């Protein structure tokens, strides 16, 4: 029981092996690695991303053009020849009825559309939500009220209905202000509306987080050194928000992929000949008697991707926030 003042006698709670500290992100990563389901889901996602990026290469290497018509694969009625929608060596997942286009090739290209919309939509939504949420949380008063009210108003609208209703006119308007016509404008529209209706959730989450973080004493500490708002936002708050942001983004991404598919299914997504999983599903619906395989393949693929993202997001959330207890599947 010595009088201790400058001693380093306090027992180190962590084994003294490495002097390099384990940052919370590394800890989360380690926890994530232990979650087998999440890791598998992560690889599935990677697989789809890989396919999407290299779709042109892959389809040309394996000769699975998504656009080439194959009359030989169809009978006189325009239906695929052979079982299960015409599955064959030439067409590993069969062909599209009516045209004989290769389904695997179209799926690969469809992955590009789905993931592109998913990723861009998520990034834009998250970005907008993050900024507005931070502003709202940090600046109480008028700006906060305005943002909160706009959020209330946004939530009061039936989003899907408006997205559907505004599709044509707004796409046209986009085209008239110089956005390249056709699918580019359509994708721009989808991302735009997803953002308009999606930012609220992110902003609310971030606002809440900021409100609680700003009460934390380390923010006060920074202010007591004369830290500027910029410092507080970028050095103190943001590092604490990233985890939440990433988790939220991961969990909302599959939502956007599914929304794109639903919109395309309702006929307001992308247009032919571009392949999107949603348009494929929308088309395949007509063939559920004649060619059920055609319906199942894009449907199940979509489901697998969405599920992989969800499971990965769950895993990430658990890794980032160990308190949120989710049993492994």
């Amino acid at each position, binding site marked *: 029981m010595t009088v201790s003042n400058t001693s380093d006698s306090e027992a180190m709670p962590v084994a003294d092996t490495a002097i390099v500290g384990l940052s919370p992100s590394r800890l989360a990563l380690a926890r994530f690695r232990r979650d087998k389901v999440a890791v598998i889901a992560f690889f599935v996602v990677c697989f789809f991303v890989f396919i999407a990026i290299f779709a042109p290469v892959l389809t040309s290497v394996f000769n699975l053009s998504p656009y080439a018509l194959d009359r030989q694969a169809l009978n006189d009625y325009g239906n695929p020849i052979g079982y299960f929608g015409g599955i064959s060596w030439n067409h590993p997942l069969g062909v599209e009825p009516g045209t004989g286009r290769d389904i695997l090739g179209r799926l690969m290209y469809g992955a590009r559309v789905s993931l592109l919309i998913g990723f861009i939509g998520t990034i834009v939504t998250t970005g907008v939500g993050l900024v507005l949420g931070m502003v709202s949380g940090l600046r109480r008063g008028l700006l906060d009220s305005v943002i909160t009210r706009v959020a209330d108003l946004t939530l009061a609208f039936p989003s899907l209905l408006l997205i559907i209703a505004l599709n044509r006119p707004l796409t046209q308007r986009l085209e008239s202000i110089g956005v390249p016509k056709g699918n580019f404008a359509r994708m721009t529209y989808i991302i735009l509306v997803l953002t308009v209706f999606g930012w609220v959730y992110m902003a609310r989450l971030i606002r809440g987080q900021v409100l609680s973080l700003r009460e934390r004493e380390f923010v006060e500490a920074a202010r007591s050194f004369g830290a500027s708002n910029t410092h507080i936002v970028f050095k103190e708050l943001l590092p604490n928000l990233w985890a939440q942001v990433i988790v939220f983004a991961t969990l909302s991404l599959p939502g956007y992929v599914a929304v794109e598919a639903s919109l395309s299914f309702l006929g307001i997504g992308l247009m032919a000949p571009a392949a999107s999983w949603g348009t494929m599903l929308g088309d395949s619906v007509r063939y559920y008697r004649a060619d059920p395989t055609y319906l199942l393949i894009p449907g199940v693929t979509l489901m697998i991707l969405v599920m992989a993202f*969800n499971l990965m997001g769950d895993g990430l959330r658990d890794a980032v926030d160990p308190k949120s207890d989710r049993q492994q599947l």
Partner: protein
Amino acid sequence: MLIFIARRLLFALALLFAVSAFTYVIFAALPSDPAALTCGKNCRPEVIATNRVRLGYDKPIVVQYGQFLNGIFKGRSYGVSEGVHCPAPSLGYSFRKHQCVTDLITRSLPVTASVALGAFVLWMLIGVGLGTMAALKRGRWPDRLATGFSVVGISLPTFFVGLLAIMVFVIWTGLLPFPRYEGITSNPAKWFMSLILPWFTLAIVSASSYVRLTRNGILEVMNEEFVRLGLAKGLRRRTLIIKYVMRAALLPIVTIAGLDFAALLGGAVITESVFNLPGMGKLSIMAVNDSDLPILVATTLVAAVFIVIANAFVDILYGFLDPRVRLN
């Protein structure tokens, strides 16, 4: 409490006004011409021009909005020599369907309500039931099953579930007849049969997130000190779970459910499309395909009204159910 309610209702009213103005402006500012819809295949531009004036679409948006609001409270006449009158509350007249929009909505609303109500009951049963089971049997197989269900359910797009359901239950096995909506008053049995698939489709998709919400909510409350005190008092586990845990855990869930239900009342767009139910969602989709602006404005507005009312209702209900909110 009365002040709380009054304040909440006032806010709802303001929001409603904002929503209606916003809806009207959004649609009115669009580059689509409602007057063009009054015209057929070999239509002449003069006809469109005349009708634009007659319908008031040539006037400034503010004036149009004023007329629209006036129509809601006082009714309004439309068409050739004002030949058509829609009594209050008039939400407009559809020249495509030759009917007062209010009539169209009152006709489709019961369908949507039937869909929404059944689906709501089912999904709350499934969601809250499975979620509770998962929480109580945490870590064991019922938990895994429920969690698995929720992940799969969340990952399935509604329309895909619906299509699969038709494929499996109607076409392949023939267990159910082809869905065709029948009013509950005209034939309750048929009504029920026609709605089974839509109910389950919506329920499965929506229940998934409720499984999670319930499970996490219950686990969280089970860690609360007051639950331990209840146990320490000697309360039965069952009593404890119902009176202490469920009450606290379900309160936030019920509020979310209220909002979801309201959103559904505005039209289960995809489900109604897949199952061809002549509800609000289907009406909206039809209006979109027909570019029928008056209907779109009205359905959007009605849906928004449901959402706003549900919000206010839920807040007020929360005030009644949670004594902590009641005072402030």
